[in-house]
């Protein structure tokens, strides 16, 4: 490794005659220093372009042309760890004439991505023959590179992807080239983080706009009933019974409108990141019993069986928020399964989801693993939810077919609007640093569960309380 302080700066700047032969060592160091200055300059210029990129496409293009021109190679490629299982996905390739950007599911590149994944990512390495063979010839003018160099793009402990350079001659890569590619990979990591932060902000804005649009739709339904029935009552004479039934519908829709607005305010606070958890040690078994007392009044308690496995830790959590989540899951189990059918609640010191159940939101969190310090699962014997509807039930106001969701025997008169309950539950669990999941098989019932870490992340405790009155 070159040591920059080995040579006085004044020697680098002097423009005197060539040094005598005995100064060969000094001269060599001067040359290396000049080369390093040029390299730094080039890295600086590429950094300007890389950081100026505002879209993924611009960033990929800037990175790959920097690899080609700085490292002086015939081919440059970029893989990003982006898919749901945390595997690198081929995103861009620079073959000489142009930069090709691929969608995440580009089929011909899967073999190449697999091969790249098989090479060690901890340090710069010359890639294996598998990687060379895996490269689609059509993308490289039919000529495979004979030497490949691959460096990881890392941010802290987080593997973000791979930057790959290839050349068509058998000359090995110099240490300068390895250093340059490493420098570019560092720039790539910072620029990718910046882009991800921008994407997250845009996603938050998009979610807020979508919520406004969906909410205005949902509010119009009860409003339609209120306006319609009240105008009918004002404009025509009807029997006392009809009057009473219309008035009870008006009342029902007013109540619904009220709770809809409360839920919307809750969700808006969560979406805007202004929510705060009031943390204290929570015993999950106590929490379950507390929630089940809500159903004790109408003789439903005997429907529930509670199974607490040994070793469940006390969690640092917001008890009132967890109560809200669990009450929602239990309420759904009660509403969407035949009257009196058994509902079981499991509490365990580990994740209760059975593979390959997807944990919602884990992919978005960069492929992190389930945080289970403990988990709770609520299982009903209702009609179950089809696979495609399982992810949708957590979306605001999602409606799934009443035939699939309803099991109460009320036919098409069963309530089909899910409202915001599950959406809010999911956000509350996410806010605790946990994840929600659902397992269901049409005809066999559904299990909704969540996994929580023993301590929520720090961000959850900053901000303003969700409902200042309730946390006192």
């Amino acid at each position, binding site marked *: 490794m070159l040591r920059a302080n080995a040579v006085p700066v004044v020697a680098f700047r002097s423009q005197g005659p060539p040094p005598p032969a005995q100064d060969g060592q000094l001269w060599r160091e001067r040359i290396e220093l000049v080369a390093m200055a040029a390299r730094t300059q080039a890295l600086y210029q590429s950094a300007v372009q890389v950081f100026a990129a505002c879209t993924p496409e611009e960033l990929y293009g800037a990175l790959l042309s920097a690899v080609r021109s700085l490292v002086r190679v015939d081919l440059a490629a970029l893989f990003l760890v982006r898919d749901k299982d945390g595997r690198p996905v081929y995103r861009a390739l620079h073959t000489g004439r142009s930069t090709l950007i691929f969608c995440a599911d580009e089929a011909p590149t899967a073999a190449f991505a697999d091969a790249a994944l098989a090479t060690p990512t901890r340090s710069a390495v010359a890639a294996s023959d598998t990687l060379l063979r895996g490269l689609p010839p059509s993308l490289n003018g039919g000529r495979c590179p004979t030497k490949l160099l691959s460096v990881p793009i890392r941010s802290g402990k987080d593997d973000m992807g791979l930057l790959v350079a290839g050349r068509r001659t058998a000359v090995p890569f110099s240490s300068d080239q390895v250093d340059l590619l490493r420098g570019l990979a560092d720039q790539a990591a910072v620029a990718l983080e910046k882009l991800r932060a921008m994407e997250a902000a845009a996603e938050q804005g998009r979610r807020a706009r979508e919520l406004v*649009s969906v909410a205005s739709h949902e509010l119009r*339904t009860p409003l339609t009933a209120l306006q319609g029935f009240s105008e*009918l009552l004002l404009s025509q004479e009807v029997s006392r019974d009809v009057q009473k039934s219309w008035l009870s519908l008006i009342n029902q829709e007013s109540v619904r409108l009220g709770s809809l607005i409360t839920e919307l305010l809750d969700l808006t606070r969560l979406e805007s990141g202004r929510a705060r958890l009031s943390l204290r040690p929570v015993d999950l078994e106590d929490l379950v019993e507390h929630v089940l007392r809500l159903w004790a009044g109408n003789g439903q308690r005997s429907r529930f069986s509670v199974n607490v496995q040994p070793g469940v830790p006390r969690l640092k959590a917001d008890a009132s928020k967890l109560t809200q989540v669990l009450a929602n899951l239990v309420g759904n189990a009660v509403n969407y399964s035949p009257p009196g059918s058994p509902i079981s609640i499991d509490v365990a010191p580990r994740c209760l989801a059975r593979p390959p159940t997807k944990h919602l939101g884990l992919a978005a969190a960069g492929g992190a693993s389930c945080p289970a310090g403990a988990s709770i699962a609520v299982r009903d014997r209702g009609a179950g939810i089809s696979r495609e509807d399982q992810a949708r039930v957590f979306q605001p106001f999602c409606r799934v077919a009443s035939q699939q969701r309803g099991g109460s025997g009320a036919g098409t008169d069963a309530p089909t609007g899910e409202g915001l309950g599950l959406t809010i539950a999911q956000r509350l669990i996410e806010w605790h640093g946990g994840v929600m999941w659902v397992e269901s098989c049409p005809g066999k019932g559904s299990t909704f569960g969540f996994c929580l870490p023993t301590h929520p992340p720090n961000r959850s405790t900053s901000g303003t309380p969700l409902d200042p009155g309730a946390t006192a």
Partner: protein
Amino acid sequence: MKTILVVDDEPTIRTLVSAILDGPEMRTIEAADGVEAIDIARRHRPDLVLLDVVMPRMDGFTACRTMKADGVMARTPVLLLTALAQEPEQQRARLAGADGVVQKPFSPATLRATVDSFLNGGSKV
């Protein structure tokens, strides 16, 4: 006696529309989603269809397109009952072949007048 098919996943809205339209000249039949609507429309040949947009299983746009592509039902007027106010939704309603759009919330008098005009040969939107 004219038959109106009311399609909405909200039982309250179906009850409301029936309360508005049922009378000596009209009777209403109900469906809770697009799939059921198509099935009932084929069997009962209604004179007009009032179709909600956001529904489980099959949305109103799809149901409307399906009816308009069906030889038997193509000439039956379809009015979309929509809570989606934005212009793109109106555009989608036209593209789906709907004959008209009724905006939620609506006044009973407006709904009755709109349905009457279509039963008496109303014009397309």
